[in-house]
């Protein structure tokens, strides 16, 4: 059994993060940390050293795009894969852009657990 992948969930929707955490942990393949405060996301990432960050875009005070930029700018975190998971885009828009928005892969809410895990498997650091 390989080690569990470390997934950091950054989303201000507490109900969503807690349920997604449950679902991902249920697979027994992931270790999940939740951060509901966008401005604390970088700090959490430094502590947690995730293999992938699942990042909401529309969040109060600090949008997901800025969080992604801060992660990329951080020497310790640079290169950490980020996947946007957002209600701000439509599936069609995501597909139009080959699933990439602003250099990062993207999933439109509501997405199924299968879609999310497939995305994690594709982009997370081994």
């Amino acid at each position, binding site marked *: 059994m390989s080690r569990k992948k470390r997934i950091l969930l950054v989303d201000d*929707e507490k109900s969503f993060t807690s349920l997604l955490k449950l679902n991902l942990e*249920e697979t027994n393949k992931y270790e999940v940390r939740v951060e509901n405060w966008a401005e604390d996301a970088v700090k959490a990432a430094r502590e947690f050293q995730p293999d992938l960050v699942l990042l909401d875009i529309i969040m109060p005070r600090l949008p997901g795009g800025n969080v992604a930029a801060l992660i990329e700018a951080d020497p310790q975190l640079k290169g950490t894969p980020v996947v946007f998971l957002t209600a701000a885009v439509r599936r069609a828009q995501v597909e139009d852009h080959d699933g990439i928005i602003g250099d990062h892969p993207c999933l439109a809410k*509501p*997405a*199924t657990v299968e879609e999310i895990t497939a995305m994690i498997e594709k982009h997370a650091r081994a």
Partner: protein
Amino acid sequence: MVDTPINLLLVEDNPGDARLIRELLKEVGLPGYQVTQAGHLSQALEAVAGQTFDIILTDLTLPDSRGLEAFRALRTAAPTTAVVVLSGVDDETLAVGAVREGAQDYLDKGRLEPHVLGRAIRYAIERQRAEVELITQEAFYHSLVEHLPQNIFRKDLNERFTFANQRFCQLLGRSREEIIGKTDFDFYPPELATKYQKDDQEVIRSGKIFETVEENVSPSGEKIYVQVVKTPIRDVQGQIFSTQCIFWDITERKRFEEQLQQKNAELAAIAEALRRSHEELKSAQLQLIQAEKMESIGTLAAGVAHEVKNPLAILQMGINYLSKKVPTEDENVAMVLQEMREAITRADATTRSLLEFAASRQLKMRPEDLNDIIHGTLKMVRHALTDSQIEVSRELAESLPKVMADRTQIQQVFVNIFMNAVHAMPKGGQLIVRTYPKTMSETTHREGSRKSTHLWVGEKVVAAEVDDSGTGIPEENLAKIFDPFFTTKPAGQGTGLGLPVSKKIVELHGGAIMIRNRPDGGVRVTLLFKQAKEQT
């Protein structure tokens, strides 16, 4: 006839003759008369200067005048009074001379009888009146002909001039004597003379008035226009013996008309330009209003969608989790979870369509081949078509003009139309897709319409028709099919946004969409797109 009292001057120096005539006059039976008698010419002239006589009876041999002089003097003094000469046996020749010079009659004094005298007096007065009237009339017409600003001439049947008025003489620069008896060939170039004579012959042949406007070139080289009226002249028997021509220069009027026409055309062009710019302005304004409206609707829809999608995502996660945790032996639990999953899919589809409907579209317009788009779209929906056993016929025009279109958007329109057709033919059927170029024969504009774009009469378009052999649309629903959220499909099968979105897309392309029931069953959807301006 003469029935008023007659004022008579009797000029007779022989008292016997005078008495005889007075006696005879009594027997004539005139309605009433008054006689003034003069023995000398001088007395007679005095009388004529003092009053107006109806008739003068005069002897030609007077003490102070002999021969025609007496007659001439009286004639000059009273030119409108009838004169009857009384002659003796010896001067009958003289009397005839007087008649030639305008006397109405002469009477032989030796053979005078009452009825002869009476008749001579009456007729002389009548004839004199008629002559005076004729002369007056002739003078009137002569004056008309000579002073009208028109050129007037007459010709005989051999094309020789028989009359020319003053103006025509001036025009030709010849005297009347130089014109009479000549033909057009003496004054005009042969080709013109030939034409003029041909026109005359036509008048003689048809017996009808001939009117035309001739274009000539003046000696100074300017173009001039001449109005010509030619008429046949008939004799007492009704035979044509002459032609008359009246013509006059209408160059000024023509120039004025031409200027008027030109000004009219200019005015019409200005009015048209104004109408167009007004139309464009209105269109721009409506587009602006529409854009603003769509932007606010778009913002609202995006906000609503975001707020709906997040809870949907939470539900999705919850169902995912429960699916794994709840015992699957219970069939009801599995069913409930499945229903919930489908409910999420439906709600998601609705928010997505809402966003599409509200999104202010930035169209990526390019010249596109509509046939290509149709082939591509049919490929996209081929599974749905074959699953429902629908046979597709393509009647696509060759070398179809291109249309300006956003390919993805138009594909979406065709997907909507094809899927509606599939839903209308659940037990199979026929789908005919047709394209052809066409020129609009009626506008899509309706008076008072607030739509920002219209197709106008004469505009070149490409038409696409999609016919299905389905159940058709109930008449009461035809007016509602483009209303958002109107659907007749079972819950979950349609969002009620397919046609509104399609209509919006087509209209953003400046085109039109029409849906009608076909007389032989099924529905025809007609799409009209403007042809791309520069065909490549």
